[in-house]
């Protein structure tokens, strides 16, 4: 097991190095720079600005000095927010985004899991079609649309929930979590339905039934564990996707998360911020993929044994 984890972590290093290098040079190819603005700047000012950010060095020198800083965990100063470091911006935004992603994932698991299991019990019946059609709508409906609709209904007409904010007033986390989680709920519903259907036709389920166990015990004690494996495998990438994909929801609900900084950084050509958040998110994605592989292996007896044996 430890060899498996160690090997996977070693694999991550070249992956991240490629991400850093490609991002570093790719953003420099984009036209326009961090200091371009609608008002022309005199050359002296432009030169002073570039000197303060070491942009007067050659590209390769900049790359080397960036890697040097990075090895000390220093992601550099932000171009867009003078006086703030990228580390600081990530430290401010990430906990919020992570909390949002966590709630969204909970929403997705509860709604998606229940819908998927219910649908799988009577395949190709109304009990299957209705949850699965709703799931399809969930996948198709972008949060850009769902968010404002939920706000209109629950925030403005019914006046039950706040329309924006984060930790400002009770209940302000519900709408963003539901909006962000719904697309993933739909995926989870489909995955858990497929997983459950496969498991329900296995021999050991027939054995369990033959023992005379009531159907609800067959499902909860025997089928769920196997049927949820595809869902577990999906959770790692899903959480990473939620972290990096929360931009729209953060913007709609005025949430001070990392997603807003990340996307704004790309528009602003905030080189250090783009690089810093990309590296940070790439590391997280690698980590969560690893985590979900380990959990999936642990949940699957056959794989577990394979890993134990050298």
């Amino acid at each position, binding site marked *: 097991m430890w060899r498996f984890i160690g090997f996977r972590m070693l694999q991550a290093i070249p992956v991240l190095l490629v991400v850093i290098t490609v991002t570093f040079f790719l953003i420099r190819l984009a036209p326009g720079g961090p200091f371009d603005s609608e008002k022309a700047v005199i050359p002296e000012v432009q030169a002073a600005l570039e000197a*303060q950010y070491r942009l007067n060095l050659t590209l390769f020198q900049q790359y080397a000095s960036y890697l040097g800083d990075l090895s000390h965990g220093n992601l550099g100063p932000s171009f867009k927010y*003078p*006086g703030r470091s990228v580390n600081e911006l990530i430290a401010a935004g990430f906990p919020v985004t992570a909390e949002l992603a966590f*709630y969204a994932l*909970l929403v997705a698991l509860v709604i998606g899991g229940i819908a998927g299991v219910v649908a799988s019990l009577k395949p190709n019946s109304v009990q299957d079609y209705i949850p699965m059609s709703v799931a399809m709508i969930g996948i198709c409906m972008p949060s850009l649309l769902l968010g404002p609709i939920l706000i209109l209904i629950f*925030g403005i007409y019914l006046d039950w929930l*706040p*329309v*924006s904010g984060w930790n400002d007033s009770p209940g302000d986390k*519900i709408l963003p979590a539901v909006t962000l989680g719904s697309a993933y709920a739909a995926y989870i519903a489909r995955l858990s339905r497929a997983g459950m259907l496969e498991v329900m036709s296995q021999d050991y389920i027939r054995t369990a039934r033959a023992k005379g166990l009531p159907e609800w015990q067959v499902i909860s004690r025997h089928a769920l564990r196997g049927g949820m494996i595809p869902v577990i495998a999906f959770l790692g990438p899903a959480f990473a996707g939620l972290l990096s994909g929360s931009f729209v929801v953060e913007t709609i609900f005025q949430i001070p998360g990392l997603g807003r900084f990340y996307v704004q950084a790309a528009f602003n050509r905030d080189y250090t911020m783009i690089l810093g958040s990309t590296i940070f998110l790439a590391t997280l994605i690698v980590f969560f993929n690893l985590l979900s592989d380990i959990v999936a292996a642990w949940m699957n007896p056959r794989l577990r044994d394979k890993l134990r044996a050298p």
Partner: protein
Amino acid sequence: MQFSVLKILCLVLTLTPMLACGGGESNVSQGNREGILHFGNGAEPQGLDPHVVTGIPESLIINALFEGLTVKNPYTLESESGVAQRWDISDDGMTITFHLNPQAKWSNGDPMTAEDYVWSWWRALNPAMGNQYGYMLYPLKNAEAFATGKIDDFSDVGVKAIDEHTLQVELNTPTPYFIQLMDHHSTFALHRPTIEKHGKATDRFTRWTREENIVSNGPFRLKSWQLNRRLSVEKSDTYWNRDKVQLNGIVFYPTENISSEERMFRVEQLHYTQTIPLEKIPVYRAMKDSPYANAPYLGTYYYLLNINKPPLDDLRVRQALSMAVDREKLNNTVLHGSNVPAFSITPPDTLGYQPPKVFSQNIEAAQELLAQAGYPNGQGWPGLELTYNTSESHLKIAVALQQMWKNALNIDITLANQEWKVYLDSVDQMNFQMARRGWIGDYVDPNNFLDLFLCDGGNNSTGFCDPVYDELIKRQAPQAISREERYALFNEAETRLMQQMPIIPIYTYTSNHLIHPSVKGLPPNLMDYINFRYIWLDKEQEAIE
């Protein structure tokens, strides 16, 4: 079994605190009770260093935290006492003496002195600072030479402290708008010991503007700054004019998304919005006691024409294009009547100045001009590309104009949208045929618009160059004795400009806000200028429905 029950239990327990019911008192009614203004500020401030930042969200916060030598009266836009109690202008207009208020203090209790200004202007103009607004101080003698590194000795620059409370300023030429510039943040005095405590004076990255460090001199002081969430200021007890400050505090929200901002206003989380989505204008306008505030704004929306590239190198083509645009129709349909059609670069009534109207909409004449240029009824038209930065409203306007040109002149215009920084690069390199552009005045004076089109103007971007025009703007207008004479010279220059038509003026901007009826002392004005000292909240005011 335990597997799923436990999980659901966990979920319920985690979700319960989130499910506590919403509602409660709105920000607006609580704010009205406590004297706190909830202000939609458009974006997260990039920073609070007055010599570094350039945007409107930053300048609004800085105007609450700091005060210049002068401030503007929001009703008249005339300059009135700030840190300077009064000022004398010499007869030749070249020397200004500011008399500082002895009561003016920094928020840590230190007195403000004339020396603070000398040091701060040294910082603002220092080439190492990279201050993008340094040019605001260029009317000072030798300021430009110092800022561009041609001279090193700051004592040659035209500013000196006569005594603790007297600041004397020498100008290059008489500059009637210089007093106005004193309320722009790039000319503000900063607290030297605070800045030097946290790093080099010209360093852009230091932490001196953080809530625990900052020392300011305005009607409010920084209370808390939560990144991308809110920034709160509270009334300062060291401000010289504190008895006249009526608000106890202001909360600035970084309302980047204009639809979210409008929804926050609707549920009374905000007193004031930075703007309003175009499609919501008719709804709000129709309300009784409408919170929609629409006023002329010192800015012009126009298309740049690259007069070096065919077919726009032909004056007749440029005139034809401009004359074929139905600005009234555009304004009434696409823009919901929210703006004012423009026929020149300077907005009408800029401190009493009226721009010339060299042309008007005339489709027959436009067709005739296009035929003379060799494209009768659009035959042989080589095509023309319009570049604009990606935005829904720019797109709507571009499509409308594209159709007007097709209908009136039977010519095809292709639209090319570019992401903001790409677009800025294209305009800067003059790598376009026709491009969208907007210009917002930094100060109320026709000069601020007309000096765009000087031969060496950094924002000219059209290829227009007329020595006579330059002579009028650079030499003759500053020497004019009276305002009438000066405006007549500007008028002559602008007439020359519009006869050459290097731009197609489209509309004069307006400011568009939603303002809760309880907010008083926030009059509309041409600069969309807010003096927070004047604002008060009327507790008795009923909520809007």
